[in-house]
């Protein structure tokens, strides 16, 4: 019999709330699940008596499919809920919606919501393990975990490695979770983007700020490129997407000018021709599809480690 996995929390609400040891345990467990999902029979019976509800109040392709596959490969029962086709449109409150789903004996909730803090709110009010699949502009912990895991696969240990996060830092939950995660793993983190999209006082999180994307690429070992989130911008922060692409878009010619190969990551969905040109997104340096593969293993690990802490 193996040793006990000591995971410090009942919920995954954000990277801010978990320890470095938790992150390392998730990565260790994900290694084993990655082996599982590359077998001819990609399934284990571990969560066969667990029911998971995927509650999505915001659109998602990758994250929802990735969670659903992770749950199914662990043999959990899965129910999917999306706000557009539900009683939420009839005026039901969030807490009522979730409690109604839970009274049908659901053990875990994966939730995505446009309002920051919803997973934390639920975790204090309902009796289920909550996994944050993105809450507003706050956190997206599983994305940060799979980003860091994918970088570790290519770079080894991240201690002292230089990572730049490029793009809309102000509206990005991926950026915030990435900063927490990379700092906990000992990396040096820089954010880069137009001044209007860099939050004030972000230096207090221990990151550098740059407005020069090419210099940042020359500085870093890996660049995590984010999408401009027009849907969250209530006022114009940019003159135009074309101007953004001109000043902050990354293309293959720019990567050529960096004297060594750096990794290019993107959490998806890519706006080709805006933050990344096609020749950069499809280059050998891009590990975007590996990120997606690792996403399933990471989410299996998180589900496994949280499922039986009831």
């Amino acid at each position, binding site marked *: 019999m*193996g040793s006990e996995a000591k995971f410090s929390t009942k919920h995954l609400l954000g990277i801010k709330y978990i320890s470095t040891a938790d992150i390392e345990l998730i990565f*260790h467990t994900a290694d084993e699940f990655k*082996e599982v999902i590359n*077998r001819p029979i990609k399934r284990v*019976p571990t969560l066969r008596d667990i029911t998971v509800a995927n509650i999505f109040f915001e659109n998602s392709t990758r994250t929802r499919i990735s969670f659903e596959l992770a749950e199914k490969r662990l043999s959990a029962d899965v129910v999917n809920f999306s706000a557009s086709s539900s009683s939420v449109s009839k005026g039901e409150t969030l807490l009522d919606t979730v409690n109604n789903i839970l009274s049908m004996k659901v053990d875990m909730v994966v939730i995505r919501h446009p309002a920051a803090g919803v997973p934390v709110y639920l975790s204090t009010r309902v009796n289920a393990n909550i996994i944050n699949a993105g809450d507003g502009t706050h956190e997206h912990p599983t994305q940060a975990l799979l980003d860091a895991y994918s970088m570790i696969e290519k770079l080894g240990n991240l201690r002292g490695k230089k990572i730049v996060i490029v793009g809309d830092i102000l509206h990005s939950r991926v950026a915030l979770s990435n900063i927490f995660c990379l700092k906990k793993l000992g990396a040096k983190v820089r954010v880069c983007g137009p001044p209007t999209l860099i939050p004030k006082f972000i230096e207090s999180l221990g990151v550098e700020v740059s407005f020069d994307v090419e210099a940042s690429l020359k500085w870093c070992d890996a660049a995590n490129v984010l999408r401009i989130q027009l849907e969250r911008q209530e006022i114009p922060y940019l003159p135009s997407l074309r101007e953004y692409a001109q000043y902050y878009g990354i293309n293959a010619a720019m990567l050529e000018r960096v004297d060594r190969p750096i990794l290019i990551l993107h959490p998806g969905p890519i706006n080709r021709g805006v933050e990344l040109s096609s020749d950069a997104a499809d280059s050998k340096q891009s590990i975007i599809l590996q990120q997606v593969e690792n996403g399933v293993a990471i989410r299996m690990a998180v589900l496994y480690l949280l499922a*039986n802490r009831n």
Partner: protein
Amino acid sequence: MERGRIILKSPRFDLTLQRLAHQLIETYGQFENTCLIGIQPRGVELSDRIYTLITEIIPGHQAKYGKLDITFYRDDFRLRKALKANDTEMDFVVDDQRVVLIDDVLYTGRTIQAALTALNYFGRPKNVELLVLIDRRFKREIPIRADYIGTSVDAVDEAHVVVDWDLNPLKNEVRLFKKKIEG
């Protein structure tokens, strides 16, 4: 701290390993279509040694060797805290193969049950046998028995058997403790 009572040590320990290896050779010959599978984590200590011994005796044998982690196949997932997983190294399918599962201590039989479940996910073996170093008799919770046994131990329920592997084979020992030591 309690040192425990030694129930197997050098030179008998080494003789026991030799005997187990020879018993396998007696049954499997050149090990055609045969997979030796150590159960993680502690069964692998034993299976590594058995595999090495077999290779020393028959250098050209055809046995496939794998390591199987059963953490994700346990049936007590909801009843206990999650366990840390170990590596699974199985670069073959077990369809139509003769399989020998190898573990250090056979007690309730639950680990072997989980291993048989896990094995299902790697194909349908022709037949499965079980080799253990220590058989704790009369404590089985399910009808599972070993085909090759190093030595048998009868002990009370609270007792705990530990196999201490050392780099120096002369220092390998099996100890019996009055109760389980945490940690």
